[in-house]
């Protein structure tokens, strides 16, 4: 019926063009595209139907534009990949031809048909149903306008690790105001705990500290350490964020980090395990997280402070602070609300807790350490001032490094943590360098892709570090031979030599893998994004949008998205900043017009909708919806008992027409 005859919905005279994409062979191999466009031409209202190799290509789009002009089309259906990919592309094409972009309906015949079905007949039949439904639906489409709203140029960066720091600095240097929120008392993240970085072995502190101080004094950065985001409202370009400042019991602006209070504390020595040193040393109730901490301000730990427990402390700290009066033991938590246009999440990772693998003896034998603990041990500012010694203070003569602890393991985490091979090599090198001990690496595979990585591996081999290919069976102090007395015995199958080895060592380093932060789920809900099944934040597209999320204006960077090493994290932070800048500098953001509106003449003010709207977009009593607040979920539309509310692009009649179209027989 190429004359565009009525389809029974009073939409006679509509002229529809249908375009079937081959997507190379992605669609064409499973769906009979020629037959499909042929069938489309028989549908009421359709005046032209074509199939083409790549509809999304320029010539493909031009095809549509020409037809619109030539055939005077006023509706377009494109059967191609998921609308989430190319709906915008084709809408632009319609706009170019002077047609309202919402006169388009995209049919998903790739992800939902050709890629998931084998039988060509069945796939083609399904595709026909979908196209028929789309044609019937598109006839009812109304012209719509995207809503343009201004963008707030400020950016929120969550997480003060290397990724967050780099993102914050990049944006601040570009002249945007950045709120950097870090829940620990100081920024720096994991990198600040490292001694050296692979493969160049340059000192982590040396390269990180300058950036940290830069953040601390950058005019465009509000650094909110010891703070947490508690609430996020609004939408792309206009997020409202509520941040909680935890009490330091020290007034930020007055404290200069002189630490006289620390010296003056009634505790002569530290009694509380030092978080930064992973409990390998003790700290006082009042303390500076670590020497290079930014902000350079002390914190008071109410759990440890006598004054908080008994109220009977001499408060020598306050004396010491003197007239500066930076200490305020009455401090309460405070909240700040800020408006930002974009958000970058750089919340980082957690390390695997080897207690979950008892056979490795961690927590049972004192001289078994995690890699991160060893980073602190060999760090000059660490508990031992950089001396790698056993608990008894003597240096180890033999050290075992167990790779892939908690990684590549069906019982714990399936994924490869990506950085362990390299930092194990780094630690092996440092241990040998500092102690001259024999170092044995137990690995599954050595994975050293990356600039200068493989070379570093070769170097270690030359240095005489031992590499044993095989999973460790267990670690114990059970001596099977006098030479093993007082040693930790690592049992592992040497899969190259083909027999089980027993290696007696003095110290074992467990190369623990990387995991999502334990509270990753709460965080993603807070920011309304998704997690992949492992719990890493989900990117919008693994290849084409690696730092974007499905929530417009929320970006991710660093190890919160998956195991990363420093250069990658920094690169991602740069990418995320660039995306944020691109968004902000556009000045306005376009929102889908899928909002709901009330037909006031039909509304009985029953009030059902009011109680349902999650955004309080409906005025009390009902009757009016605030289009700016409405996010277009359509819940009120479905609930309105007198059918007085409609949703743009998802009107009852459009959906019912789609249903009829799907089920009508050809």
């Amino acid at each position: 019926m190429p004359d565009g005859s009525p389809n029974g919905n009073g939409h006679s005279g509509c002229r529809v063009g249908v375009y079937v994409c081959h997507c190379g062979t992605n669609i064409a191999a499973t769906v009979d595209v020629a037959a499909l466009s042929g069938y489309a031409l028989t549908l009421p209202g359709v005046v032209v139907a074509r199939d083409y190799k790549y509809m999304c290509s320029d010539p493909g789009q031009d095809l549509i534009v020409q037809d619109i002009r030539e055939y005077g089309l006023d509706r377009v259906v494109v059967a191609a990949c998921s609308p989430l990919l190319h709906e915008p592309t084709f809408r632009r094409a319609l706009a170019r031809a002077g047609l309202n972009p919402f006169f388009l309906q995209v049919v998903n015949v790739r992800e939902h048909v050709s890629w998931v079905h084998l039988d060509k007949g069945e796939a083609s039949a399904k595709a026909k149903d979908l196209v028929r439904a789309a044609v019937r639906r598109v006839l009812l489409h109304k012209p719509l306008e995207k809503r343009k709203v201004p963008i707030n140029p400020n950016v929120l960066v969550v997480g003060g690790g290397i990724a967050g720091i780099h993102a914050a600095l990049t944006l601040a240097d570009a002249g945007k105001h950045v709120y950097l929120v870090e829940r620990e008392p100081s920024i720096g993240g994991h990198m600040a705990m490292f001694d050296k970085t692979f493969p160049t072995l340059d000192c982590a502190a040396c390269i990180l500290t300058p950036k940290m101080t830069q953040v601390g004094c950058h005019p465009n950065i509000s650094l909110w350490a010891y703070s947490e985001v508690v609430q996020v409202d609004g939408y792309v370009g206009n997020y409202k964020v509520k941040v909680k400042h935890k009490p330091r019991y020290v007034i930020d602006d007055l404290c200069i980090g002189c630490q006289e209070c620390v010296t003056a504390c009634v505790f002569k020595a530290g009694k509380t395990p030092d978080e930064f040193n992973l409990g390998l040393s003790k700290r006082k109730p009042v303390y500076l997280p670590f020497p290079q901490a930014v902000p350079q301000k002390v914190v008071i730990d109410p759990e440890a402070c006598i004054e908080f427990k008994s109220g009977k402390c001499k408060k020598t700290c306050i004396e010491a602070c003197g007239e500066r009066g930076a200490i305020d033991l009455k401090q309460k938590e405070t909240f700040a609300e800020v408006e930002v246009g974009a958000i970058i999440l750089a919340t980082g990772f957690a390390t695997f807790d080897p207690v979950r693998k008892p056979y490795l003896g961690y927590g049972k034998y004192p001289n078994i350490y995690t890699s991160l603990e060893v980073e602190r041990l060999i760090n000059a500012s660490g508990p031992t001032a950089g001396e790698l010694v056993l608990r008894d203070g003597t240096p180890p003569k033999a050290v075992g490094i167990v790779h892939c602890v908690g990684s590549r393991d069906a019982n714990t985490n399936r994924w490869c943590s990506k950085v362990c091979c390299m930092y194990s090599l780094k630690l092996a090198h440092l241990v040998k360098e500092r102690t001259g001990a024999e170092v044995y690496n137990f690995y599954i595979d050595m994975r050293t892709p990356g600039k200068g990585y493989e070379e570093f591996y070769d170097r270690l081999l030359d240095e005489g570090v031992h590499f044993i290919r095989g999973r460790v069976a267990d670690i114990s102090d059970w001596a099977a031979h006098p030479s093993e007395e007082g040693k930790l015995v690592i049992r592992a199958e040497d899969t190259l030599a083909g027999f089980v080895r027993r290696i007696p060592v003095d110290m074992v380093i467990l190369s623990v893998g990387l995991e999502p932060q334990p509270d990753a789920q709460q965080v993603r809900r807070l920011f309304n994004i998704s997690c992949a099944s492992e719990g890493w934040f989900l990117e919008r597209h693994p290849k084409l949008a690696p730092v974007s999320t499905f929530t417009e204006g929320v970006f991710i960077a660093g190890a919160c998205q998956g195991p990363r090493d420093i250069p990658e994290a920094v690169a991602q932070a740069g990418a995320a900043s660039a995306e944020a800048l691109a968004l902000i500098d556009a000045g306005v953001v376009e929102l889908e017009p899928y909002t709901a509106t009330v037909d006031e003449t039909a509304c009985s003010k029953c009030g059902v909708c009011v109680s349902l709207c999650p955004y309080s977009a409906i005025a009390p009593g009902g009757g009016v919806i605030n289009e700016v607040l409405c996010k277009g979920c359509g819940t009120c539309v479905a609930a309105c008992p007198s059918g007085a509310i409609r949703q743009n692009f998802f009107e009852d009649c459009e959906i019912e027409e789609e249903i009829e179209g799907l089920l009508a027989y050809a």
Partner: protein
Amino acid sequence: MLNRRTIPPVVPGKAFEPRIVAFFCNWCTYLAADLAGTSRLKYAPNVRVIRLMCSGRVDPQFVLKAFAEGADGVLIGGCHPGDCHYQEGNYKALRRFLLLRRMLTQMGIEEDRFRLEWISAAEADRLKTAVNDMVEKVRALGPLSLEHVPKFVEAEELEEAPV
């Protein structure tokens, strides 16, 4: 007010193939279906998906409409509880689903023909299983012809029948 209901043609030797209409939310289940595609998972071709922004948009009228127009089953897919892109739309969907299912049962429509699934953007496999499982169950039930709804019988047919 009349709506035409078309039930499948009888093709000799061709087994009954259920027709299932699915309403998927734009942020979770529709994405899962896309992911199933990109992951090249294979599942039964009986389901026809209608995309909505949120499972909270599913109007019970759509479900009845689908059954009325000849669907043998209806599947609603939304984000997991707590994960709704619009905060609580999926709970609204759940509440409507539970009451509607109760009413459909009262009207004689089997429970397995109407289903609500929470499938996140990452759970392509779950989508596959849900679809296949539902298709199997509905296939076992056979076509929904609303037989339980007393059908109008022409006078002639009844004339001789004992009242």
